[in-house]
């Protein structure tokens, strides 16, 4: 088990528990490492993974260093030498992707727009994975009334479409970035918990858990040191799948105008919302390019998620 894939507080607490029986996890870790190495080599020979990673890395680069890719300002309208602006300029020439209604460079907005979504989506996903893993492990290991109670809550969250729940929560608590991160984290905790729960139930029936119980290990040790490493694969797949859905949900919220973002600032969903009604007037470029950016990002994340899933099952 690699330490960086474990939620931090758990690792620290578990350290004391691990000291009592140091030999067992180490032996298990060695074989696990071999398997991991093999899975990684499968992964890097999958075309889907390479293409997905390529697109993903491009957008990460755009999010971190947008000025490396474009020197044009995304907020100020492009002006010619005579000081005139060029609104609704079709793609080609100076502005590769054309200019929007008030003459801003669409390419610059698309590149700079990667930042917001690639900050918020990973943070929200990370919180959901940590919370969902803890909840799912607890539910799957202890079962009984704790599981029954949490299952009902998970089920009620899942019975309302994510986007509706998100709209409800965001309208209730205000359209701010922390609220949006919290909302997506909370809503995605439910499906993560359900997946981890199912995997935990399957693991808890295996002999190694039974023998750990017979050794008299504490539940906490068994969950963190024995079961968690064996459900890491499921969690990694869940992480990538949820990241895709987080991008999906964030873009939709931005399109619906509930992202709390200043519409001046570049954001793919907001930009589509501001321009799509002009598609009918044949001004398609300020809409289509941010729309394609969203599509390429979710497709990339999905390709990576799917490749990891396959590699783990290989």
């Amino acid at each position, binding site marked *: 088990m690699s330490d960086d894939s474990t939620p931090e507080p758990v690792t620290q607490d578990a350290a004391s528990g691990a000291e009592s029986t140091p030999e067992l996890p180490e032996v298990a870790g060695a074989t696990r490492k071999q398997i991991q190495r093999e899975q990684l080599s499968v992964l890097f020979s999958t075309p889907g993974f390479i293409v997905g990673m390529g697109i993903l890395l491009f957008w990460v680069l755009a999010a971190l260093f947008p000025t490396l890719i474009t020197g044009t300002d995304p907020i100020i309208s492009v002006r010619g030498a005579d000081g005139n602006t060029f609104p609704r300029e079709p793609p080609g020439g100076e502005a590769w992707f054309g200019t929007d209604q008030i003459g801003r460079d669409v390419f610059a907005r698309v590149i700079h727009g990667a930042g917001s979504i690639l900050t918020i989506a990973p943070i929200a996903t990370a919180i959901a994975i940590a919370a969902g893993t803890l909840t799912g492990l607890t539910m799957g290991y202890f079962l009984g009334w704790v599981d029954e109670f949490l299952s009902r809550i998970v089920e*009620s969250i899942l019975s309302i479409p994510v986007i*509706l729940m998100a*709209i*409800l929560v965001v309208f209730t608590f205000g359209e701010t970035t922390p609220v949006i991160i919290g909302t997506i984290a909370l809503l995605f905790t439910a499906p993560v918990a359900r997946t981890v729960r199912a995997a935990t139930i399957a693991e808890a029936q295996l002999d190694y858990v039974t023998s750990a119980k017979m050794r008299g290990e504490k539940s906490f040790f068994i969950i963190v040191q024995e079961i968690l490493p064996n459900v890491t694969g499921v969690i990694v797949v869940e992480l990538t799948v949820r990241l895709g859905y987080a991008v999906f949900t964030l873009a*939709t919220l931005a399109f619906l105008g509930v992202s709390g973002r200043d519409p001046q600032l570049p954001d793919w969903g907001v930009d*589509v919302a501001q321009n799509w009604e002009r598609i009918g007037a044949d001004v398609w470029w300020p809409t289509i390019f941010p729309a394609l950016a969203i599509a390429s990002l979710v*497709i990339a994340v999905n390709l990576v998620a799917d490749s990891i899933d396959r590699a783990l099952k290989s």
Partner: protein
Amino acid sequence: MARFILRRLLLSLITLGIILVIVTLIPNIAPGDPARKIAGGTASPERLMNVRESLGLDDSVLTQLKDLGGSVITLDFGDSFTKPGESAMGLVLAALWKSTKLVVFSLALVVPLSVAGGMLAAFKKDTWIDRTIVNTGLALSSIPEFVAGVILLTVLAVPYGFFKVGANAPDGASQLTVAQHLLLPALVILTVYFGYIARVTRAGTIAALDSDYARTAFMKGISTRDVFLKHVFRNALQPTVAVIGTQLGYLFGGMVGLEIVFNYPGLGKLIFNAADSADYPLLRTGVLTVAVIYMFATLAADLIIAWMNPRARVLTEGGGS
């Protein structure tokens, strides 16, 4: 069987109860005075009083919960705030009818195509046909509906007049015209669900083809066609039914972006507008309706699966959730 249905219904009622609590709490925990937000900043004190009273905001949360529980039983959630004089239930039912049209039309297009695609992929397993179907489906399914919507608007609706920009046909239009208007949003729903349904169908078909009973049937010398029709089809489609069941709630209430792009007065848009304007009676009715649809759809899916395969009944009963 009766026990299974009863247990499922009971669990659904508990889930519905939790959603009831959530929608009751929302105006209470919303920052600021929801009554002022609804009535507007310049509202008279009397108007504010009225709004507070109709929302039940002066009552304790427990009383509000009891009132809302009563509303669920009588199916009377009061009048909409934004459209005075119109009952929230009536508005929701009108939107529900619109959503039903869109969902039924879309599924009639999506399910046969996706099932055919999934089965084709299963029969051509590990060929380029299989990979194309699976990967295209996977790539398309992750695109948000509003993105697919604006792209289709650009490449289809603007150059070709046959595709309509708005999904809502004028009143009194023929069924054919209604279908013509619904075609583009249905194509968007196809992009969202083709990959998902095709993939599950593919997996189900491969599992059924690999099963002992299919192998036995092949060995008995039964033709591929007969093995397929008599043994594989029924078993292969069980996961497909389960997926459609769990997605129906989303199709009815989650297509907010799609309904906005195609200006379609369905349930998703109604709930979004209700939340936007703090129209709590409408919001509560809409959300509860979506939850009820989800429950009945998943229950129906489970029953169909149980009917297709009696073994599933036992499995579901032991599963817990």
